[in-house]
């Protein structure tokens, strides 16, 4: 009975209730067919181009580069996608897949609300009924996105249980899916969960890296020295990294959320924590205590506030192909201000982790080297959090 399907090294797998095994197989088969179907791919391409606004620019951040005084920094502008983040790439892909499978209803989880908004958008566009589970804490932090989802016709359900954040929203979305499995598809938003989700999400997000690779070759004539992306579950990062994995000279750096600081225990840096375990269908690095109970993650950015990290990242870490660093809440806030002041771009708090790290790293590199940062989302959704965090100090 052993299979190695859906494994990245020892990570991944399908640790789900038996009721979900048949639907996961159905999903896997449907996806395998779809990804080889030129009609499906043409439809996806049409929406990504005409509706999402791809391709997104690879923008040379000249003033940021000058300010750091080292390597040239390029920004992959996923913040310019319709709905303001990379999440729409996957949401449109999976919504089209759901339609193809004859599923009329969608359930999704959301942390920052970006995946929820993207899914609500795709469902409005493709006439699917949509329910989004969101931790009550995140509903409070991201009120703007809750209202956006509701305007798009989605029902948002606040999850009061546990830490009332992304992990608890995933629990409820999984419960909902188990209970309505016959007519509902679960649009998982990150490169997490049981096989085939980590692969599907990666494949729908790899357009980020594919475009970047072509664009940097056009603009610089060579591949970048370093590619940097923030990591919660890891969807923007895996989408950015994957097309570069075989380019051994390109350094891949994922930036986890260090929250209040790694030594405080209040962070979301699962790879840093180095404990392995099973949650939400996958074997992965996981924040947990000695009893195997899942610990709450802490980050100022709701989208990174998750105790695990996608299985493919765990594998890339172990084989040394990617390295994983971390940035604190305070540093991420500095990243927001830095990009806003030098480039006139307000990054999402999630992306600001990558920006801050890139800025520090650039200083240690020479001007003929290049860094690409995945600017995974825009920061409008975070204005309330920013007012609380920096507004008072500047006033």
């Amino acid at each position, binding site marked *: 009975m052993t299979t190695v399907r859906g494994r990245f090294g020892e990570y991944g797998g399908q640790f*789900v209730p038996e009721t979900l095994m048949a639907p996961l197989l159905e999903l896997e088969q449907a996806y395998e067919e779809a990804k080889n179907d030129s009609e499906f791919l043409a439809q996806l391409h049409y929406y990504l181009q005409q509706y999402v606004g791809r391709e997104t620019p690879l923008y040379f951040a000249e003033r940021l580069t000058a300010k750091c005084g080292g390597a040239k920094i390029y920004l992959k502008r996923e913040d310019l996608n319709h709905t303001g983040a990379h999440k729409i790439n996957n949401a449109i892909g999976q919504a089209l897949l759901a339609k193809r499978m004859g599923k009329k209803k969608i359930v999704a989880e959301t942390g920052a609300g970006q995946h929820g908004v993207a899914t609500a958008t795709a469902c409005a566009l493709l006439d699917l009924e949509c329910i989004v589970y969101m931790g009550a804490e995140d509903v409070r932090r991201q009120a703007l996105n809750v209202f956006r989802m509701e305007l798009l016709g989605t029902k948002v359900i606040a999850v009061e249980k546990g830490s009332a954040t992304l992990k608890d929203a995933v629990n409820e979305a999984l419960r909902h899916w188990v209970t309505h*499995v016959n007519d509902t598809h679960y649009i998982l938003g990150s490169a997490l969960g049981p096989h085939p989700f980590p692969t599907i999400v990666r494949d729908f997000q790899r357009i980020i890296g594919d475009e970047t690779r072509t664009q940097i070759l056009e603009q610089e004539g060579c591949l970048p020295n370093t590619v940097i992306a923030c990591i919660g579950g890891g969807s923007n990062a895996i989408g950015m990294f994957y097309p570069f994995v075989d380019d051994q000279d390109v350094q891949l750096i994922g930036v986890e959320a260090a929250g209040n600081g790694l030594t405080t225990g209040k962070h979301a840096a699962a790879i840093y924590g180095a404990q392995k375990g099973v949650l939400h269908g996958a074997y992965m690095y996981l924040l947990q205590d000695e009893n195997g109970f899942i610990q709450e993650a802490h980050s100022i950015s709701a989208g990174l506030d998750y105790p695990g990290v996608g299985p493919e990242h765990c594998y890339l870490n172990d084989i040394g192909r990617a390295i994983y660093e971390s940035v604190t809440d305070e540093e991420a806030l500095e990243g927001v201000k830095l990009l806003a002041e030098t480039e006139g771009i307000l990054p999402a708090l999630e992306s600001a982790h990558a920006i801050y790290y890139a800025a520090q790293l650039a200083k240690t590199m020479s001007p003929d080297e290049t860094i690409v940062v995945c600017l995974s989302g825009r920061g409008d959704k975070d204005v309330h959090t920013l007012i609380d965090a920096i507004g008072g100090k500047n006033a």
Partner: protein
Amino acid sequence: MIQKAIDNVLARGDRAFVPYIMAGDGGLETLKSTILRLQQIGVTAIEVGIPFTDPVADGPTIELAGQRALQKGTTLKSTLATLASFADEITVPLVAMTYLNPILAYGAEKFAYDAKQAGIHGVIIPDMPLEERNIIYSALQKEQVSLIQLVSLTSPVERIAQLTAASEGFIYAVTVNGITGARSDFANELEEHFAKLKAASPLPVLAGFGISTPEHVKKFASFSDGVIVGSKIVDSLANGDWTTIDALVAASKKIR
């Protein structure tokens, strides 16, 4: 031992009755008296739930009981130690129901050994399907702790054959698409589903999820080898309502 206990019940013309209890709900100090009383009123085996922070297969009743148990500091370790302290007084087989991660953190081999010492003859792991069982299976085999497989309404025919062949002790037949917890309705095709399962299975087939009244017990007893009752037992224990529990157990007797 689990299968033998069920076979004995069936030979008497009764059906198996397996209550689910949440270890540590009300404090681990209540575990002994609860288990001893349940075995006294004639249950076939007892499913002992281990609380977990993220119980995705459970509905609100069991999830809340788990949260109460967690608040009292209950862990897999403290539960096994408590059970071991009165294992010589336990006369029915215990089945541990735990999510996988606490076992991985405990260590699979140590878990299997300590479970056996604590009177646990089988385990049910709701987030570990057959394909993933190798992560702990050899450890369980070594201690002869049965790994009980769940079969769902969505399991296709070929898969049912694999699951029933692989299961040990009994087959846990999930009666609904969904999570644990009381329900008023079940699908109409259940009898057919159970007929298929019983035909495929060399082991007794027990029905679980959503069974909450003596009428449900009688209904499922008519076409399965017994029932597992969770949320209703957990609720009744939390309220000290043994009358309800007695009535549920009584409904499993004298079926034919």
